């Protein structure tokens, strides 16, 4: 199954309906399983029960970054291969990514108050994630401001690729600068540093959130295709009404 088979919008609508039929129950199941594991996970010896904010904060952060990477891949699909559904994917992913990034910032802020004594600090990790959120707002504004969807797609694609420079900055910010935010402990070259009793529920929650993202993304893409069809039909109707 290569990507070009998904290019036909009608075919995509049919295929995605079938995918969503099992994806939604799978998401709910994995969330239930991960939620139970998170509930039963032990308290941290230092942070107590507040460590469990991590089970929402880390998946939200991962998905906020992943959404921009997905948008960058879609941007390449638009600019290089002119794939018809690439811009639909990019437009659908932007608000979802923005929402997850906002959730990451808010949960992190609530976690920081008891842990660090402050809601916010201008260190490298927090600042670069805030910049990512601002760029999400910028690309959503671009989509809203340019009327023609095809032109808007290409302009947004260029901006997405330019903004992709922020992603490695976010990932490596805790290594390059002396930050208040803790350094990487899950994805490190010399192995993870979290204890397995917390690492397994964390990975389960990450899986659950990723399935949620995929569900929302596919549903949003379906909506966008239908929205464009509606727009075309309205334009045709207006054209016929004003015709000879």
């Amino acid at each position, binding site marked *: 199954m290569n990507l070009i088979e998904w290019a036909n919008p009608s075919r995509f609508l049919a295929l995605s309906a079938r995918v969503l039929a099992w994806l939604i129950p799978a998401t709910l199941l994995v969330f239930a399983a991960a939620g139970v594991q998170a509930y039963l996970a032990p308290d941290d010896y230092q942070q107590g029960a507040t460590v469990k904010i991590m089970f929402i904060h880390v998946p939200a952060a991962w998905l906020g970054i992943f959404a921009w990477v997905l948008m960058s891949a879609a941007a390449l699909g638009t*600019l290089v291969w002119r794939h018809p559904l690439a811009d639909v994917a990019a437009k659908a992913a932007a608000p979802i990514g923005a929402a997850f990034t906002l959730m990451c910032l808010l949960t992190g802020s609530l976690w920081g108050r008891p842990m660090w004594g402050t809601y916010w600090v201008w260190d490298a990790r927090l*600042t670069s994630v805030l*910049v990512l959120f*601002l*760029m999400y*707002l*910028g690309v959503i*504004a*671009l989509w809203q*401001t*340019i009327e023609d969807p095809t*032109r808007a797609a*290409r*302009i947004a*694609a*260029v*901006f997405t*690729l*330019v*903004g992709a420079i*922020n992603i490695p900055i976010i990932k490596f910010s805790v290594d390059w600068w002396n930050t208040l935010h803790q350094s990487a402990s899950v994805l490190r070259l010399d192995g993870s540093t979290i204890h397995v009793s917390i690492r397994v529920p964390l990975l389960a929650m990450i899986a659950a959130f990723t399935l949620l993202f995929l569900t929302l993304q596919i549903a949003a893409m379906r909506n966008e295709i239908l929205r464009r069809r509606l727009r075309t039909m309205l334009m045709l109707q207006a054209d016929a009404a004003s015709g000879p």
Partner: protein
Amino acid sequence: MSAVTELFIRDLRLAVRVGGGALMGVVFFLVLVALIPFAIGPDLALLARIGPAILWLGALLATLLGFDRLLTADHEDGSLDLILMARMPVEIAIMVKALAHWLTTGLPLVVVAPLLGILLNLEPQATGAVALTLLAGTPALTFIGTIGAALTVALRRGGLLLAILVLPLNIPVLIFGVAASNAALVGPMPFGTPLTILCALSLMSAVIGPFAAALALRQGLD
């Protein structure tokens, strides 16, 4: 004269004519710096401490305001189409236009900054340092803003959107500009380190800016 030189001189001429708006950035810079003490009070010690930051923010905002005459003005009267259809590579054309834009918008800001430093009670050494960092950093502001100008070229009211798109990309320039100014004031970091990074940012954006802007123009205007 080659086409590149012609385009350069055309842009310079248009900028200094009536309606060119070249020196409006300077006036805005002055108004902004005059406004700050009304907001934070006339405490001279405080103004001297945050003086470099005020000058940098003023230069950044003044640069942002000048961007509609870079590409949108040409798009509105049709000359952008001629420039895109010419044999000269679009990237070169945009680089030349951005360079002319910096000479007429960014460089006046650098020249005026020492005078405004007096308004902010900056010492001569600090003022010189800030002016030098502005000289190294305003090209980066111009070239990065060129990307935003190309993205919003066909929008009639794209000014605010341009600011939203460009300001996050300008953050590294701002960080290193103020770091260099403060390094000259209080140390202990040597002044040369952030200044060199600022020069590097300007040189990198001089390449990346026109290429990204050319891509945006090609994709957005057909």
